[in-house]
């Protein structure tokens, strides 16, 4: 087995995560309150304002997937009446809960003091927390984030979300924490968010260079980790993204390709845009199918589920509540299908990709429903090679390595054929 090469930024992130889970494991003895919430459109800065500790069930599920635990968790949930047809993140979470709720660091996760159902871009979130409510004796607060069905955020949508944050959420968080909302502190945290967001965008856009110094999908999921989860608005996040940017600047100056688990990718043969989340149970195997063929992902939609910063959005300290509302509504899975296609088309053009690939995951209808139309539209508009593979987020039964590898190899041959034809 190869030992993965790690940058200083990766070590830094690992330390941040370990510290966070350490805080969670001590939360009850330290008197800290814990809020379970979701990644897309999350309100991390607001939780920070009340010194609340977030737990993100999707992250637990994907980390369980990477550690090979979800096969058992999912089967446990299915045995207790959960359908084989539904989202495996939910079932992995339920199975983990029924297995003692042990987090990725081996420590037990604390029970929630509040379930913050901020549901951006995914109906399953709603059902997920209805299910968790049956397991925990704690309140649920709903933040309904309207969908950009007509491709825009209207004034009414914004007022609705701002009103919910101001009149429902903040009073609930004050009640839970026993602390008053501190708008000045929120402004300061939002300044830090914007600073980190600047650096993240720089890192993601570095993939426009040839060769790309990063992989914006397999590597990208690590880069988005701190900003999408519990660290946005913190000094830790600012430092992490500065460090990461410095590393990428150096790679760029040296003309190096991305770092993979098997070392530096030597030759960039194919530049790909990827739509859809990755598979987590065979993440490294999946990644290897790309880097071993010289394929680098130069842009991906999955790394935008927690914010479309590359389209210019930054958290705005001058409008602290309004900016949280804008952020919630602006995440990738809250875009309508035509907008998603426009964005992917732009990525294909701006990043000079050879083609695009859709990883269609069974668990996530928010991503998957309509992807075959996305495929057709992008092929029609760009003329570039489109590929389509199927897997799942964390259900190992739905990752067929041989099948996916075959498809990818055929896909790369298709790119070669298009090149030959000119």
């Amino acid at each position, binding site marked *: 087995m190869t030992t993965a090469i790690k940058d200083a930024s990766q070590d830094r992130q690992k330390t941040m995560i370990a510290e966070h889970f350490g805080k969670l494991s001590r939360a009850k003895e330290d008197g800290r309150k814990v809020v379970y919430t979701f990644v897309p459109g999350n309100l991390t800065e607001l939780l920070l304002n009340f010194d609340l500790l977030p737990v993100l069930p999707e992250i637990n599920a994907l980390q369980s997937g990477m550690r090979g635990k979800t096969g058992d968790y999912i089967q446990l949930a299915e045995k207790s009446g959960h359908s084989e047809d539904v989202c495996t993140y939910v079932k992995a979470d339920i199975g983990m809960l029924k297995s003692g709720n042990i987090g990725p660091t081996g420590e037990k996760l604390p029970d929630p003091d509040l379930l913050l159902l901020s549901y951006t871009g995914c109906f*399953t979130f709603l059902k997920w927390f209805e299910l968790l409510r049956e397991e925990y004796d704690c309140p649920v607060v709903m933040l309904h984030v309207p969908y950009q069905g007509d491709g825009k955020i209207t004034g009414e949508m914004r007022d609705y979300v701002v009103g919910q944050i101001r*009149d429902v959420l903040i009073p609930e968080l004050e009640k839970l924490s026993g602390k008053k909302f501190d708008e000045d502190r929120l402004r300061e945290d939002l300044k830090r968010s914007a600073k980190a967001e600047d650096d993240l965008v720089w890192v993601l856009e570095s993939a426009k260079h040839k060769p790309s110094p990063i992989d914006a999908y397999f590597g990208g999921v690590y880069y988005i980790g701190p900003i999408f989860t519990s660290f946005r608005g913190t000094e830790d996040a600012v430092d992490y993204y500065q460090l990461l940017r410095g590393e990428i600047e150096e790679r760029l100056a040296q003309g190096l390709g991305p770092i993979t688990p098997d070392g530096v990718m030597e030759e960039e043969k194919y530049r790909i845009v990827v739509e859809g989340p990755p598979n987590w149970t065979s993440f490294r195997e999946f990644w290897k199918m790309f880097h071993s063929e010289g394929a680098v992902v130069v842009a991906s939609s999955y790394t935008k589920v927690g914010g479309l910063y590359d389209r210019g959005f930054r958290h705005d300290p001058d409008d602290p509540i309004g900016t949280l509302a804008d952020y919630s509504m602006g995440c990738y899975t809250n875009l309508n299908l035509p907008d998603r296609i426009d964005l992917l088309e732009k990525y294909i053009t701006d990043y000079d990709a050879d083609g695009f690939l859709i990883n269609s995951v069974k668990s996530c*209808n*928010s991503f998957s429903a309509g992807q*075959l139309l996305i495929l057709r*539209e992008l092929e029609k508009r760009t003329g570039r090679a489109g590929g389509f593979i199927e897997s799942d987020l964390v259900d190992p039964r739905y990752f067929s390595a041989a099948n996916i590898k075959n498809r990818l190899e055929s896909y790369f041959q298709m790119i070669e054929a298009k090149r030959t034809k000119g």
Partner: protein
Amino acid sequence: MSIAAPPQTQATGRLGEIIALAQSLYEDIAFKAVADWKAKDKTRRAIGFLPVYVPREVIHAAGGLPVGIMGGGDMTEIVRGDSYFQSYICHLPRSVIELLVSGRLDSMDGFLFPSICDVIRNLSGMFKLLKPDRYVHYFDLPQNFRSNLGGTFYVSELKSVAGAVSAMTGTPVTDERLRESIKVYNANSRAMNALLELRIEKPWLVPAAEYYLLLRAGFLLPVDEHTAMLNEYTLLVQQSDRRALDNIRVMVRGAFCEQPPVALLRTLERAGCYLVDDDFVVGSRFIPDPIAETGNPWDALADAFMHHSLPAASVYDEKHEKAKKLVDRVREVRADGVLLMAPSFCDPALLDQPMLQEALEQAGIPFTSFKYSEDTGQFQVIREQAGTFADAIKLWGTV
């Protein structure tokens, strides 16, 4: 296509004519009835809507015809629809796309996609791409139920739809017109409730398939015609000589979006189950009580949705009372048991199911569950399951 009704329930005379009309409307997957309605006046406009619920009063007030697009059922051969969806997506969107690309939705001047799940949500975007010349709107129902928040947002959504339909028909939705439409739909609601009550009291008089066809007719006919149809049916069926069978009384949950084939309903009855309550075509009676006919009609519609609608898996259960409401309803309709029948790959229904099962178990109410799709054609397994369920309840009072 369908299984014949048992002899003693076959409708004849005027009753038979009503059922024949409802059946023909159900089978009208090309929406010829809508084209005929429009042909009578060139200014008429029809707005198709997907499950589960849209306030049809707003479309009606704008002079439009609200038309339910409930999928292609078991009558639509899927030629191209499958190529738009992966195998793990439910069946409804593929038949709806089939209807669209085959031109069978051409009589619709616009489409509304109520918020129910991610599939229907994304389907709205597919329609935008495939029918760029039509009005296509994702109708976002509020999940916050405070009047000044969810209520205000909902009214803005209602006014947005009203404005769009009015622009097509040339009829502005004034408060007065909207109040009149609320009255018209309240009359429909009363007729529906009378039928529902009769079904609860004497289910042998109202076979599930007939009841279902009448519900579906309401999503195609102009509302006053449908109200008249319901009233006449309810009157006539009470004069019929249909006899009660030794069936158990069951309640159905989970079928609120993708609809079961009619033959499946007949199968369940033949297996010994009277369906005394269900959530089929639930948008047709989503607000069971009359909506306020005076005051601000927009607020009345918002209040009705937020505080007086039926529970649905697609609506956030803010008060954590779904389980209690389910059990209460079982008692209210005196059901012996519950059939949890959900469409395959239906996230809202299937994610709801463990909570519903738990509630039923706690209350000691027998239940059984199975999945279907709108084009299910083999019923033997379901018939055996439902038959066993019915027999067990008849013999032992439980399963």
